[in-house]
């Protein structure tokens, strides 16, 4: 029995390790290719797995030809502003929907639910026309625009507020806090795990978004990492090491953040899914 269990555990590990290898392999290949010369990358006989000498120039060339500093700035400014707006406005609205009584509440919350049920592409053309009309194309504001408010965030945070005991609020109100103070000083700090989850969720999905930056910021100095890659991908088409260097440059910041905050990432995603 003990022996059988050991064998099963062993097989399980083998399967999981193969799975893990498949998950990591593309990233490994990305880095290895980025450090090769062009002829190494296309050499078939012999097939080259590891570069002879690390070709760091690939990165240098890609950075010189594409203003990556600008791309990092655009991407992170967009992420930071979207996270800020989503977290602040969603928490405010969510508290009101969870704990306050006011006319029109159910109808307005219905709007929130309705937005969540509709595929997002339906908003894209009108949102683009608005940004265009306001003359904000190729700005950071344009990148943030569709994420100024978050129906998903409102729904998620409402779940968190509803899970808090009512007594807390009542005693805060007896202590003389007004509604805003009760929300801001007493209730909001208690939903920290929810705020973190929403922040991570918003940051991750705005980082990965491709279509909106592609549409709204067509100038290369206003692009995000994702939309710049789309252009680089067609411009460099056959210089695989440089293509992969660009991909590495686009991927590493989020990877690093993930490695540092992996617990918060995974728990954040799990709670944001679990609360729905």
């Amino acid at each position, binding site marked *: 029995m003990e022996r059988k269990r050991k064998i099963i555990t062993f097989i399980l590990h083998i399967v999981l390790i193969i799975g893990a290898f498949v998950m990591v392999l593309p990233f490994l290949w990305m880095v290895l290719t980025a450090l090769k010369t062009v002829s190494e990358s296309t050499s078939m006989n012999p097939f080259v797995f590891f570069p002879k000498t690390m070709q760091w120039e690939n990165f240098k060339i890609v950075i010189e030809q594409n203003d990556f500093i600008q791309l990092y700035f655009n991407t992170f400014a967009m992420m930071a502003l979207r996270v800020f707006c989503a977290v602040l406005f969603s928490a405010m609205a969510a508290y009101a929907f969870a704990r306050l009584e006011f*006319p029109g509440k159910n109808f307005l919350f219905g709007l929130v639910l309705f937005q969540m049920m*509709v595929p997002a592409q339906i908003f894209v053309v009108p949102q683009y026309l608005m940004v265009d009309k306001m003359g904000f194309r190729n700005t950071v504001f344009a990148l943030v625009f569709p994420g100024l408010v978050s129906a998903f965030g409102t729904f998620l945070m409402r779940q968190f507020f509803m899970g808090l005991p009512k007594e807390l609020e009542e005693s805060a109100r007896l202590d003389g806090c007004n509604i805003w103070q009760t929300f801001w000083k007493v209730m909001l700090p208690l939903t920290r795990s929810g705020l973190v989850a929403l922040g991570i969720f918003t940051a991750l999905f705005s*980082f990965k978004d491709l279509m909106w930056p592609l549409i709204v910021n067509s100038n290369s100095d206003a692009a995000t990492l994702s939309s710049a890659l789309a252009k680089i991908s067609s411009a460099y088409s056959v210089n695989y090491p440089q293509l992969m260097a660009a991909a590495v440059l686009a991927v590493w910041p989020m990877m690093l953040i993930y490695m540092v905050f992996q617990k918060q990432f995974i728990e954040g995603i799990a709670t944001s899914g679990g609360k729905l």
Partner: protein
Amino acid sequence: MRRDYRRIFGKEWNTVKKVSKKTRNEWYWGWFMVAPTILGLIVLNIIPIFQTLYLSFFKSGAFGKGNIFVGLDNYKRMLSDGQVWHAVKNTIEYTCMVVPVTIVIALLMAVALNGKLKGKGIYRTIYFVPMVAAPAAVTMVWKWLYNSQYGLINHVLNKLGMDSVNWIDDPRVALISISIIGIWSTIGYSMVLLLAGLQEIPRDYYEASDIDGASKVKQFFSITVPLVSPTLFFVLVTSIITAMQVFDVIYMMIDVTSPSYDSTVSLVYLFYNNSFKYSDKGYGSAIVMLLLMIIMVITVIQTKLQKKWVNYM
């Protein structure tokens, strides 16, 4: 007498006013706090839905030359447009390939990692990695791996004595190649959600069935699956909706001129091309309305079927 009345009414009036002042205060705060979100939703989402519907009845001239009302022509055109039918077929095929495979593998992995296995945290971290990489970058690497001449995958196939596969340009294979990327990048996400669902199942159930001598396979089907079914349902619904909106991977991998375009173009990719590449926002809007209708039909079917297999405790 009169005075007394006045006093009584006055008092009553005051308390009524007092209560209503307090309630009214709550109303004002409520409206104030939902205002940014509601205004944002109205401007960014609610009005655009009607605008998209409205636009779908127009033919848009390039560069704002003005829209011409064409009634249902865009919808009629869709019915006879081969590309739209390709897109519907490709989108559904992609969803049918990606969702079941992802969920089955993710569930099995979640079950494996839910036990006392050593190093389960490391596995979880690694399986989630594709989720934090931008699809644009990920697709570039896969495209390179799939390269028919120099790609790693064909090299390995050749070493194993198999023929090279034209992963990207062969119209019969391309959608499968794209689905593989889709599966690879979403397994970790589904697994994390399912793992969270599995952790809610009380241990006692397994202990009790261990005593009864039930096998692990039996436990999986009679305890794990029914009890995790609410999470499974959520993952299924969100996976299907996300898969129906596939765009990034196909956009990065298949160019409009590619021989595989017809056999891989998705509804959203077609919407993007028509709205922004060919600047026919009217036709693009009609395509996105079609997507909305398809997703709504699928969601209604799912909620109907939900009662048959989902157990809420």
